[in-house]
């Protein structure tokens, strides 16, 4: 399934295909007196419909890179372009809108709201994106979409259950449903199987692959698991703050 990256990450991709582009990203963390350069000079071009895996050891900065690309964090220098627009310099409101409408996130620890049931957690993204009146007007349609997504993920019998009553795999599938609710252009997955056993992790990967295959979903996944990374179209390795292709 996986294929080796044939273009260098530094090579600029053809503009028409590129959906997201990271250019010379740098990020330093201050830990007491020490400065740690997590990202030194990272370039990356992501094409629409691509499934890219970023592999790296724990603490290599791959999650930081994902957060910066997903407008959850900012870089010290460099730029991230989404559809040609620099998201690093966007005002907060625009970045919020981007996270709500164009990006979807899946995290290692699922991050569901414990007070909400499965259906409500899934509806959270459209709830954030709509005002009260707008949401109530579209409630039926949105609930139908959430129920369909959850059914596709095998959770139709769990709609009214709260996260505390679900297994790890089920929680992650709810998180995937939530991430997909607003039909994101890019799905960011941060160690999506990191907290699951092998079998359940496999099921989650199957869901992501199916999304990519059947719906041409653009996915950026970071993982420390080389085996999982190989399931992506393209594998990049983050080492010493620099991104390189898997074979370099």
């Amino acid at each position, binding site marked *: 399934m996986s294929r080796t990256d044939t273009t260098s990450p530094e090579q600029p991709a053809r503009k028409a295909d590129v959906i997201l582009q990271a250019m010379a990203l740098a990020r330093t963390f201050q830990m007491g007196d020490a400065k740690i350069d997590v990202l030194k000079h990272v370039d990356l071009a992501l094409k629409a419909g691509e499934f890219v895996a970023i592999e790296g050891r724990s603490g290599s900065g791959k999650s930081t890179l994902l*957060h910066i690309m*997903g407008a*959850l*964090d900012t870089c010290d220098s460099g730029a991230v372009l989404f559809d040609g627009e620099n998201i690093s310099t966007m005002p*907060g*409101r625009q970045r*919020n*809108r*981007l*996270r*709500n*409408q164009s990006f979807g*996130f899946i*995290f290692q620890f699922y*991050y*569901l*709201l414990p*007070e*909400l049931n499965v259906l*409500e957690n899934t509806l*959270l*993204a459209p*709830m*954030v*994106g*709509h*005002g*009260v009146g*707008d*949401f*109530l007007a579209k409630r039926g349609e949105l609930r139908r979409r959430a129920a369909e997504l959850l059914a596709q993920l095998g959770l139709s019998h769990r709609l009214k259950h709260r996260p505390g009553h679900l297994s790890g795999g089920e929680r992650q599938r709810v998180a995937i449903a*939530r991430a997909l609710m607003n039909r994101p252009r890019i799905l960011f997955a941060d160690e999506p199987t990191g907290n699951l056993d092998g079998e359940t992790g496999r099921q989650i990967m199957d869901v992501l692959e199916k999304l990519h295959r059947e719906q041409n979903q653009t996915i950026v996944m970071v993982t420390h698991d080389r085996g999982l990374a190989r399931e992506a179209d393209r594998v990049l390795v983050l080492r010493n703050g620099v991104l390189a292709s898997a074979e370099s």
Partner: protein
Amino acid sequence: MYKLHLILKYLRKRRIAWWALAAVTLCTTMVLVVISVMSGWMSMFRTAYHGLEGDITVSRVSVSGFPHYQEMLDDIRRLDGVDAAMPVIKTYGLINVWGQLQDGVQVEGVGLAQANKIGNLVQGLQDQEPYLRDKLATLADPADKAAMQKAIDDFPSFDKPRSDDWYRAHMPHADTRKVNVANWPGIILGYAIIGLQREKGGAIERPSFDLNGVWVHLTPLVPSSGSMPDLSNLPVQGFWLVNVSRTGVYQVDSKTAYVDFELLQKLLQMDPQPYTQDGQQKLTSARANQIRINIKPGADLLKMAGKVQEVVDAARNRYEDMQTQLDPVKVETWEQRQGSFLNAVEHEKVLLLFLFGIISLVAVFLIFCIFYMIVAEKTRDIGILKSIGASSGGVAMIFLGYGLVIGIVGGGLGLLFGFLVVHNINGIHEWLGRTFHIVVWDPKTYLFDTIPNQISAENAIWIVSIAVVSSVLGAILPAMRAARLQPVESLRWE
């Protein structure tokens, strides 16, 4: 949409918020109960004391009173804006009730027909006309019936409602001393003097015996106009109890006896007394201790007091015996007369408000701490919300809205509990006394025999509004902290 949804979810699912809710409810209840009782007490105090002596009084401290009251009374009644005016004699005396109770009391000589228009003495009498009519229907003896009918016709009065024979029968041994008890006049006693209790609903209890058969011996303190008091010739007068009164002021109801004005005037030798001047027999002017005045609705109290003062000044200029150097006749509004006490209570109210200000601060701080804990506990949720596009303002609004809802629900519950407590406060107090022997409201201390149980709508609105504002204030800093959190920091929160 998510803000409203999460506020309601957090309120229902987060037990810690219930503590904040309980704190707001308790504080609101407590402040409402105390302010209502305090304000009610002030209001009762003002109403009762206003009712005791009318709007304006002309008086001297001395029990010997002042002369020429009738001339002043006539002038005062002619003043535009005066509704009614009456003379009163106030003195002290010893009473012996039924040979079972001896006590020192304040004795007031009043004309009950005039008192009907001034003060609340007549309204507070236990036996009102309908009761007397019912009693009339139960009487068989024609002489008794005639006496009762006269008492009804003359009501309010000191008329005895029974026949002479009935009274003689109630004091058989009096004949042996050649005392005609049937001639004894009527007297009204404060209900607490003879140990009657107030029943639920405020009415005075009716004892098993007939109160009309109770005799009272009164020894009033006769003021001496000479240089030496004459203590050897104190008059003792017998009376029959014709009614009991309740003004609502315990100190008055436990220490005041009322008799007819003219009778007391004679007993105290304050009626015109003969004297010789330049070989001619003359009469002194009759004396009274007070003139009580009620003004017409809408008339300005202070202006009317000024006009009454002019009348008194004119009398002082006209009559030499009014020109005393000590203890001159004073004109006071009822507020001026109770000024020292009213001011003390007002100051106490300010102190109370200050104390409640501190309590409110404690409530705000409590809400702040609880919300700070909630925000700390919900830090990761804040990260999740921000990761799916929630704005900082939106996150802040969740916690501010949460505080607002807690304030509204807590304030509302506090209002409900406060209303229930205040409305039933006398019942609760009686139950505490009966069950645990706890007496919080001693009428000897607080003047009134009932705890005020009315909530003012204005006070309630203010207190609930302050509870809501306090809740929002307590949530502001935690909400700002939540808003400032970066999504990645929040997601990594341990």
